[in-house]
């Protein structure tokens, strides 16, 4: 087991198998390569991408299908290659697909335009911009979650 200190979760233990690797970091965080996906029952279905390098870097996220049950994943050719997928990945089978959550004037929004795509087999990850730009980078969550409940 490895461990890292985190602001939100204290000392966080993780195995190599549960760490994910962003070969190019994320836009704005290019040097952050290694994260752990943290799930806490109290926060379900929220999940957290916690950096193992930077203890106060933690992105809240939701699985894209928890936001939009009909979400369709499109990954551009370069991203597909970087992620090691030979064919277009399927959500849940090949890939864990998470939308990062932000707050804008206290309104939660999800970045459905550029989800984090994690190859479930290799744990390689990348933030992939939809090549067809079909989704919003500031999708308002309130309406989606009200509809789901």
């Amino acid at each position, binding site marked *: 087991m490895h461990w890292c200190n985190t602001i939100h979760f204290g000392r966080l233990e993780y195995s190599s198998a549960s760490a994910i690797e962003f070969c190019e970091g994320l836009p704005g965080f290019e040097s952050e390569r290694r994260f752990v996906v943290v799930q806490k029952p109290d926060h379900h279905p*929220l999940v957290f991408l916690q950096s193992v390098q930077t203890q106060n870097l933690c*992105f809240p996220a939701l699985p894209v299908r928890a936001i939009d049950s009909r979400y369709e994943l499109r990954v551009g050719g370069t991203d597909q290659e970087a992620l090691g997928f030979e064919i277009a990945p399927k959500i849940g089978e090949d890939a864990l697909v998470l939308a990062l959550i932000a*707050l804008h004037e206290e309104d939660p929004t999800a970045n459905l335009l550029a989800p984090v795509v994690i190859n479930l087999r290799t744990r390689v990850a990348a933030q992939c911009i939809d090549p067809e730009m079909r989704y919003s980078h500031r999708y308002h969550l309130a309406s989606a*979650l009200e509809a789901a409940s």
Partner: protein
Amino acid sequence: MMVMRRREGEKILIGEDIVIHIEHIGRNKVKIAIDAPRELSIVAEEMKMVREENLAAASVDVAFLHRKIFPQTSSAASDM
């Protein structure tokens, strides 16, 4: 805003230091090569949007977010 028509292979010059080369025009995409001073930041618009969203996501107060999107279970999140 200035609008200019260019064919594949043609170039646009901006000032002394910036050259924009229309390398290839496909069915619904153009490939553009840009020569510019190193200190100029050149990114696709959507990349800038993603960076801004990531910076916002990194500074979210998680307990507040949880109360906001799951008000019915907010008491459970207060320990974080």
